[in-house]
């Protein structure tokens, strides 16, 4: 079975909710994960952020759903770390 351990996402989001609320909302949906968020660029109405998410078994679709629900848009999946265990 393959599990996702770590992903790095390049995300474009509106200024609100702010980075803290954004990171907390992601962490809230998948308890036990670690979310690290860095602002890369700020424009008039939007900001580009890099989100590093680590956990035992990340649910990628659920994470993207939270980001989309908060008005964000995943630009790219820059890095992934997956592990495989025998079933």
């Amino acid at each position, binding site marked *: 079975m393959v599990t996702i351990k770590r992903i790095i996402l390049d995300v*474009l989001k*509106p200024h*609100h*909710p702010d980075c803290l*609320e954004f990171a907390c*909302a992601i962490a809230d949906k998948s308890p036990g994960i670690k979310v690290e968020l860095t602002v890369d660029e700020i*424009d*008039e*109405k*939007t900001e580009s952020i890099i989100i590093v998410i680590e956990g035992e078994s990340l649910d990628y679709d659920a994470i993207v759903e939270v980001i*989309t*629900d*908060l*008005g964000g*848009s995943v630009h790219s999946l820059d890095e992934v770390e997956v592990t495989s265990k025998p079933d």
Partner: protein
Amino acid sequence: MFKQLSLLFSITHSQSILRRYFIVNGFDGALTMLGIIMGFYMSDSIKLAVIMNTCLGAAIALGMSGLISAYVSESAEQKKQLGDLEQAMVKDLGSSAYGEAARLLPYVTAAVNSLSPLIIALIIISPIWAATLSFELPIGAVETAMLIAFLILFLLGVFLGRISGTYWLWSGIRTLFIAIVTAGLIFLVAT
């Protein structure tokens, strides 16, 4: 549900908008009632039922006016803000929290803008209503209604003071002064 509403208010900064609508229209409601009741007070021998129906009519009209005006203006404003953000994001945000806020908030704003003057007006005219039902009041029903109007205007000032961080008593006295000036003007015109 509460968490979701709180998120929608937070991303659209709606708390301040709702607060503004509550105070502005609440102030309108209280001052309008004070004006009508003052006008009747200056006239001779008007039946309480007439005062009551006039105030009730004005209260309902204020409520309806608040409902429609806030809904129309707020839905246009939210639609514009969503459109601007969609343009910046190059993405349809209809299914996101922003889209939900643009659909839901005009209703919430309209409810606040409508209920604020309506409830305040109903509180002010409650002694007159009680008197028409033959309830005994320590002082006259019209006088009690005017006192309640002054008290509500003072409390709205106190609320404003707490929001702005200024001294609550000073802020309350300021709105009370406006109410007294209004009552004085009506008194001058009616005599």
